[in-house]
């Protein structure tokens, strides 16, 4: 079986590129190929001008990888975890120590730095994991579902942190199963389903592809038949309007560039004495985009948080 089949995309320097798709779509497989963890059966990958097949170790020097599951060493302290990562990247000691202190501060782990990671909370372990991925200042950072398993508060904090990293110049490739996350973070994104890319572009462009905004008109008395008829008559010919549908409180107008049509709609209805009690315009969401391309709603499967039980403040594992 192919987890990923014939996908092709290009990530620009300095952007946040999102890979949006449900569980099992092939997101992790893609990220594992790109981070040199998994060998692909066909195709070619180039990172910063380096061919993945020819020189994987050159790629490893410039990338960082935050896996979906937190992988910090619980027997070691936060500081020791970071120090190891610096050694894996052959940093000089003085430089490493400076960076470690900086990053502990930036991730709010300063106080817990000399405690074993096994005693950390889930959010702290996730932050430490991210810290180990970025301490080497990668040009390109891969994040596999960075907020899956986090509570809403930690999720928002993680979003801010990712944005800051990007602003500081790190190119970021992230996978997510959350529409909102892709919408908020990604400059451009691909929607992946069953191992294939079904759509790609900026979130705005993808949504614009839907072709219509929804202008919702609430009418007095839930829309008398006469009002509805007159409204249909005057709004039908308006340029950009694609479809008018009844709903129990009034009418729904599907139109291109809905917001810019609002003044005209109001004017036309005023001309024929149809009053509006409320008007709202909603842009299509990425949910609509996913539905359009796959014909079904994307179901987010909340996996159990990737932290295991903590007994007496410290996790035990067989030796």
């Amino acid at each position, binding site marked *: 079986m192919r987890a990923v089949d014939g996908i092709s995309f290009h990530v620009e320097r300095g952007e946040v590129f999102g890979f949006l798709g449900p569980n099992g779509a092939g997101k992790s497989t893609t990220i594992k190929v790109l981070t040199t*963890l998994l*060998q692909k059966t066909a195709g070619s990958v180039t990172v910063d001008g380096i061919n993945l097949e020819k020189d994987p*170790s050159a790629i490893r020097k410039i990338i960082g990888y935050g896996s979906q599951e*937190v992988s910090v060493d619980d*027997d070691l302290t936060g500081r020791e975890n970071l120090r190891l990562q610096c050694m*894996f*990247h*052959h940093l000089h000691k003085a430089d490493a120590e400076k960076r470690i202190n900086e990053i502990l501060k930036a991730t709010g782990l300063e106080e817990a730095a000399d405690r074993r990671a096994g005693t950390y909370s889930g959010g702290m372990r996730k932050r430490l994991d991210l810290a180990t991925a970025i301490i080497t200042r990668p040009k390109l950072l891969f994040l596999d579902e960075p907020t899956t398993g986090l509570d809403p508060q930690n999720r928002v904090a993680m979003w801010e942190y990712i944005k800051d990293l990007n602003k500081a110049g790190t190119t970021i490739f992230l996978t997510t199963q959350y529409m909102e996350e892709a919408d908020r973070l990604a400059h451009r994104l691909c929607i992946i389903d069953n191992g294939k890319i079904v759509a790609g572009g900026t979130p705005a462009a993808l949504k614009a592809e839907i072709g219509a905004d929804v202008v919702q008109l609430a009418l007095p008395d839930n829309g008398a038949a006469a009002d509805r008829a007159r409204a249909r008559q005057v709004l039908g010919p308006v340029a950009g309007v694609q479809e008018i549908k009844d709903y129990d409180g009034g009418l729904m107008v599907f139109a291109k560039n809905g917001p810019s049509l609002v003044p005209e709609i109001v004017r036309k209805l005023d001309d024929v004495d149809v009053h509006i009690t409320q008007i709202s315009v909603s842009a299509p969401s990425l949910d609509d985009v996913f539905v359009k391309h796959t014909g079904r709603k994307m179901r987010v499967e909340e996996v159990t948080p990737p932290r295991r039980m903590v007994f007496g403040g410290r996790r035990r594992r067989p*030796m």
Partner: protein
Amino acid sequence: MSARDIFVEVGAVFSRWLKKTFRRPAFVFFAMVQPVVWFLLFTQSFAKIADIPGFASSTGTNSYLTFFSAAVIIQTVLASAMQSGIGMVTDIESGYMDKMRVAPIHRFSILLGKVMSDGVRILLQSIIIIVLGVILGVTFATGIGGVLVILAIAVTFGIAWSGISTFIALATRNSEATLMISILTTFPLLFLSTAVMPQGLLPDFVQSVATYNPITYVANALHVLVITGYDWTTLGYGLLVILAVGAISLSATTVMFRRAVAS
């Protein structure tokens, strides 16, 4: 990749494992309690073995404690070596292996750093046993020099044997299976060797099994060093067996490891 880079990355893996080892209560148990239990339990219960006709003449000592000290070293080395693979599986399971694989380090450094830390662990455990033995009254016929050779044998044999455990671990990718297979193979091999009983006193069929059991040759080498003195033939056989076991187990492990961390 410069020599400094390799030194730093192997050092990173090595120091990580040493820290992990010494921060675990299990290590203290395996290193300290188990040898004590073995020494006290077996040497007390089986003290009369030394009175069996032929024991003193074939071994060169009339103290079972002295004879048995080699078995304690071997048992501890085997038990310690058998745990080596488990750390490797835990790393694969937890994703830490991937973390190392994404870093620009040589794949072999991951294995080398681990093996080196296993060697240090086994060295420390062997020192503890020897100190314990001296306290209990074991005398070493070859003196300090002999003790150093004993330690060298313990460490090299331990590293060779740890290859078996790492191979099983990488093949099964399952820490419980690794532990089970390890225990199931270690104990019978120990008792089907000359470690706990001189060759001449073993039943015939055990004698023939013991002849093909690598542990026999390591036990014989330790026995002569503790009891009688440098017997180069016996030591030579011991060295050959350790080299053979090490060559087979470590190359099998390397192949498995390559497959596990491919690319």
